[in-house]
């Protein structure tokens, strides 16, 4: 996993609530057995308009962007921090949604409401891939979202994961600094780009001990 310490990038806003993973990456693209190639498939059914979405095996062959989709605006191109509405990533457990967001060019997603910004599984999938899910206080989130609306294409932010701060710049006048919280264990893993499995294997003795003390009825019986 690529470590995440600080990141400066342009902001893009998708101010919709309850954006579900079927919207982020429609189910038919889940037939891909690779971890790559999902960038052009991000929001495919919104992004290209009707009939323009690519086939699962040829992500690069797609129709023209649909101007009605907010992230198709010129000022969103090249953005790397996605500002979204509450309960982003709800629905299915598909990690493909996180792969698509990351391969679509984003390193962080910012949603309003502590404990309410992201659906649980999306959030853990994000951490496991090095996509930083940031939940801001709703008032702070509103200022950030307004900065993007007021300064289209110019609003930028710097995320400092060690300090757990996000700072707005880029034509947005002042530079408010907002704080957020990331669970200690996730932060440690992200900053150092650690592999969770190796870390867990260090607990092998404890795992073995648990296995030995499990009740007999818990073991699967006949095949």
């Amino acid at each position: 996993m690529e470590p995440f310490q600080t990141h400066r990038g342009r902001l893009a806003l998708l101010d919709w609530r309850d954006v579900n993973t079927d919207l982020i990456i429609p189910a038919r693209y889940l037939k891909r057995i690779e971890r790559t190639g999902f960038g052009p498939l991000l929001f495919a059914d919104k992004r290209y308009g009707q009939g323009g979405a690519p086939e699962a095996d040829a992500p690069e062959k797609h129709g023209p962007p649909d101007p009605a989709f907010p992230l198709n605006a010129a000022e969103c191109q090249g953005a790397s921090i996605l500002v979204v509405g509450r309960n982003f990533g709800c629905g299915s457990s598909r990690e493909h949604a996180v792969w698509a967001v990351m391969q679509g060019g984003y390193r962080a997603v910012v949603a309003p409401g502590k404990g309410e910004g992201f659906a649980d599984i999306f959030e853990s999938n994000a951490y496991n891939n090095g996509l930083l899910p940031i939940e801001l206080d709703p008032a702070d989130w509103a200022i950030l979202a307004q900065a993007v609306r007021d300064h289209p294409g110019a609003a930028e932010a710097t995320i400092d994961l060690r300090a757990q701060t996000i700072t707005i710049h880029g034509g947005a006048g002042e530079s408010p600094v907002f704080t957020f919280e990331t669970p200690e264990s996730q932060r440690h893993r992200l900053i150092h780009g650690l592999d969770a499995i190796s870390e867990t294997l260090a607990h092998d003795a404890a795992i073995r001990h648990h296995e030995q003390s499990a009740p007999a009825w818990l073991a699967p019986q006949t095949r």
Partner: protein
Amino acid sequence: MATTLFQKIWDRHLVAATEQANLLYIDRHLVHEVTSPQAFDGLRLAGRTVRRPDLTVATIDHNVPTDDQLVIRDPLSKKQVETLRANCREFGVTLHDIQSGRQGIVHVIGPELGLTLPGATIVCGDSHTSTHGAFGALAFGIGTSEVEHVLATQTLWQGPRPGSLGVEITGRLAAGLEPKDVILAVIRAIGTGGATGCVIEYHGAGVRALSMEGRLTICNMSIEAGARAGLIAPDETTFAYFTDQERPFAPKGQALENAINDWRTLVTDDPSAFDRNVSIDASTLAPQVTWGTNPAMTVDVTGVVPGPDETPFAAPADARRALEYMGLVPGTPIAKVAVDIVFIGSCTNGRIEDLRSAARVMKGRRVASGVRTLVVPGSEAVRKQAEAEGLDQVFLHAGAEWRQAGCSMCLAMNPDRLEPGQRSASTSNRNFEGRQGPMGRTHLVSPSMAAAAAVTGRFTDVRELLDPRA
């Protein structure tokens, strides 16, 4: 201090814990073809093995064609299925393959085969793993990286222990009402984010009165309220599931007795232990129909499509987008809305009782002209049972299609899907945009409401179709 069922199961499975991170042991890992290929690849790349193939079980469900399971025309679907077969062979994982007699939607076969046990931890790379909580198992969906982690270590890292939300169901369901109506009403009451970060425990007399099938339907959609998991404390109904019929992987004889003695302790000592509690009176419910693009956008079948300002938990702009997508005008009685397709199946409502409910309504009636109706059993075993009871004949005589087991039209990944603009009455769990096919319009209902829509061609209060003598 009073302890919840959830806390008891959680504590039993802690392998290591720090203030912010908990390592949980996983008793059962269910695997399907969609979310596992990249996980097996990861193992291969790192030279790792599956730690406990005996606790890992796979099946094929999402990609399966339900007209003829054996003929997978889509080359990508075929490749995904074959990849699972190859991975199971390579890593020594048991696969319940198509036409083995045990294949089906992963959340339907888990209980049937006795893989799902009270007090166990169960994970699967699938959000509807919450289904298994109906047995008093702590069951939740995980992403592909976590699938890889569980394959390699049989454990999973979790943050601090989630909070608990008690959902009390009082009262009994009236005729024509089903567990699906209960869970839709719960989500409508608390919103799609109403239980984010929490584990829901359903309790109360209304839950005790339900069969295992009904409980599975309710726990299935916990995720639609944002919950980590849904739980129901095991009771005599749960135990009978194992004593009335032999479940291949479940304990038997003395081991089962020991298990049941232990399972009796799996209760919440006092409902005051929940962080929050909400209550729903099941006896006052009318059949529910979703009108919008998330499962909280629901009305009574006697109600009308709401306006964008009358939609709880949605900003007016979001509600307007939903109305537009669904092609609905506020104020329209939902019972005036016509359907093109009826889908009866999925891990929410693809079990035998669901098919019985649908058959009760369809018996002696005909599917309305112009409506296509698919009845899709959730597993090969459900299909066999339904045929033994003659339900297949009821559906076929009514003019419905009797299909083979799979996820089918629940999601647009196999040949069963909506065409753009088509409107469905569906017993599945998600009405998201495009869920059943790009630009398809999904309304979630119970099996008997779906059957009622099939025979009338529109959303119909199933209570009007019930035989008063029955």
